[in-house]
């Protein structure tokens, strides 16, 4: 009964279809929000800048990818390239003197344009073949970025990002950069929460379940797939730009290479398809876990007095990480988001579990 459903009577449709109809959810969201806002004082500066902030940005990007993968059911193996386009466009924009906000939006729009081109090429097929064609497009983008010095920034292929200026104000403090990231992440999250309740969201789900069938009931599947690609590309592009401005401070081709695409994919799948909270879990899992396992293994080795070489010590966490991905998929193929939902469903009726049966 932690999530109390009994005794809640919605007297109008608005209340019934509210984002969080259950009070405890509302409370939890409130607490999380408060924690998010107070983070600069709650977390150590290390945790804030190296864990929380990048996590939020990657979660936003994962949400964007989840829009295509989870909601619209279309593969995208080239999402990192899309993020890279946003990042490069925004950095070049700011360097050319465009105000930061506009440059970031431009980055998003450029990503959208390229994303739509992707989509036109890729959406003629589906399933595995869509995955492969987007993967091929990722390679094309990688090639273009690293072979056009005007984009990549010369021989050493790094492009310094100018200082972030929000509304003309320089933002350099840890807290300031964090709030920019938080703001974007919240924006994307609220957008995704609302998407579930709109006609667009439902149409996407229809397309995902069976696009022919969706067409039969009057959903233009190609149009909606295109919209999904465009929207998600915009989110990806802006996330890429924000990642560079707040976290990397410089943009290089490797930051958006094919393994990053695969990591993003892993975030979404391990987190849970079409699960918003899952995207947060997934981003944390993929992004933060390897480093943490690293320390855990080193600590355990020291504790047991085992003398493991520095090299072996580095490979074990990688192995554990692979095993964990396999494990999550075996235990709950719908990902961490579903695991959370299972717990929540259990608690919904706890302690009256039999009410379900």
């Amino acid at each position, binding site marked *: 009964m932690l999530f109390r459903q009994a005794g809640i009577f919605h007297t109008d449709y608005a209340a019934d279809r509210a984002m969080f109809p259950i009070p405890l959810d509302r409370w939890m969201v409130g607490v999380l929000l408060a924690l998010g806002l107070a983070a600069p004082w709650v977390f150590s*500066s290390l945790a804030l800048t190296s864990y929380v902030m990048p996590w939020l940005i990657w979660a936003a990007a994962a949400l964007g990818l989840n829009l295509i993968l989870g909601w619209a059911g279309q593969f995208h193996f080239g999402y990192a390239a899309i993020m890279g386009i946003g990042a490069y466009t925004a950095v070049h924009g700011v360097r050319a003197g465009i105000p930061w906000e506009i440059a970031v939006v431009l980055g998003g729009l450029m990503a959208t344009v390229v994303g739509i081109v992707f989509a036109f090429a890729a959406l003629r097929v589906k399933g595995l073949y869509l995955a492969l064609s987007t993967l091929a497009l990722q390679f094309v983008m990688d090639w273009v970025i690293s072979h056009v010095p005007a984009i990549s920034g010369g021989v*050493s292929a*790094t492009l310094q*990002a100018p200082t972030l200026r929000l509304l003309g104000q320089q933002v350099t403090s840890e807290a300031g950069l964090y709030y920019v990231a938080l703001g974007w992440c919240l924006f994307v999250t609220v957008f995704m929460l609302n998407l579930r309740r709109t006609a667009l969201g439902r149409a996407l789900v229809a397309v995902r379940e069976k696009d022919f069938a969706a067409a039969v009931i009057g959903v233009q599947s190609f149009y909606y797939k295109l919209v999904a690609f465009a929207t998600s590309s915009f989110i990806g592009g802006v996330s890429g730009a924000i990642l560079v401005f707040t976290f990397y401070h410089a943009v*290089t081709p490797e930051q958006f290479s094919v393994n990053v695409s695969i990591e993003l994919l892993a975030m979404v799948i391990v987190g849970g398809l079409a699960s918003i909270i899952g995207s947060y879990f997934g981003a944390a899992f993929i992004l933060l876990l390897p480093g943490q396992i690293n320390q855990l293994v080193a600590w355990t080795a020291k504790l047991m007095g085992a003398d493991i*070489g*520095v*090299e072996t010590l580095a490979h074990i*966490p*990688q192995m554990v990480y692979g095993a964990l991905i396999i494990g999550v998929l075996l235990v709950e193929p719908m990902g961490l988001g579903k695991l959370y939902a299972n717990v929540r469903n259990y608690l919904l009726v706890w302690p009256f579990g039999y009410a379900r049966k």
Partner: protein
Amino acid sequence: MKKTWISTLAGAVMLLAGQAALAQKAEPVRFALCYDLSKAYTFVTPQIVQAAKDYADILNAKGGIQGHKIEIIAQDHGNEPQRGIECYEKLKREGVMIFDTLSTPVSRAVLPRVMADGNILLQSFVGRGDAIDGDVFKWIFPIGPTYWGQVANDIQYIKNYHKGSLKGVKVGFVYPDYAFGQEPIPVLKTLAATEGFELQLYPNPLPGKDQAALWTQVRRANPDWIITWNLSAMHVVAAKEMKRNGIPMDKLISVNWFNEVDINNIGAAEAKGMKRGTNVVGGQNHPLIQQILKDLYGKGKGNGDRKNLDDVYYNTGLAMYSVAFEGVRLAIKQGGWPLTPAKIKAGMESLRNFDANGLIAPVTVTAKDHGGGGKTRIDMWDGTKWTPQSDWISAYGDVVEKVIKEQSAEFAKTSK
């Protein structure tokens, strides 16, 4: 009664203070090696870490640097910028001032932060070449030659071989098609224009293991010299393909990243005649290595596999950390304890003709020049060992300098 209580307290306070002083005296100098130990750079990083730890043990046995123990912190970042930054940020907050990343993507990602924070980033033999411009890259210390300098020296060697004229000579450049491989091209192009040799470029897409078509082209074009910018297994493929295409081994000049593992994979006899741009002396004749063998491995106290000592990358690690430890020694000697990044910087910049007892060409680091001279030499594999083919040389300083200035100016312009 009361008096005793006070005196006890005073005694305790004094004891604590004394311990604090003792602790301060014993406080170590810490070096953070945020390395890629699990993905792309595993062919070199374990040897370097092992060398750094071994040398630190040797020094620590003698009391460390100016009485301060050395602590080597090695952490894996898997060649991912995100985790490299995490490693840097974490250790920075724990008070580490000297960092070493040894991975192009991570170096690029960490560099802006190091510059902003004013910490020391060691980048010997790796990372961006323009960082030797000490005016712009105040906190970056790529002591040793850059790739630009190395390739210029290769050309100088070829020029000497042809008795001073490169007219009509054909030089092929085989490189993996990404930043590391592309880097020497501007210098090569400039030199081709000024010296009049014909430059042929042979890009090889990553992962670089499939070079059949490439060597067919090389055999057709038949260059007089082939400079390769390969890494680990790419060398093996290249050497085997040369054999199969009937290209003589002695035409080959490799980048410095070519070690005994590669030789073994090619076959020691097969590799005979090939040359390497060398910036660290290989072999175990060096007194330091002899000492390490005796004091550490002889007693089973080594920091890893004894086999790794046969590897030139181990020597490379020793060279890198000889330079770093010497810089820190100078820093403490000049500025005293506690260390600050500024003191370390000053210490590094006062290295004069330091050659790590003959491991490297002597380097002289100044505030302007963080490279230290950029000397390399050409070694040849004679079937059993590397034999020097030239002195330590540093050629075409003006050309290299020009590229460095162009690149660093670009960085200076945009990092504001």
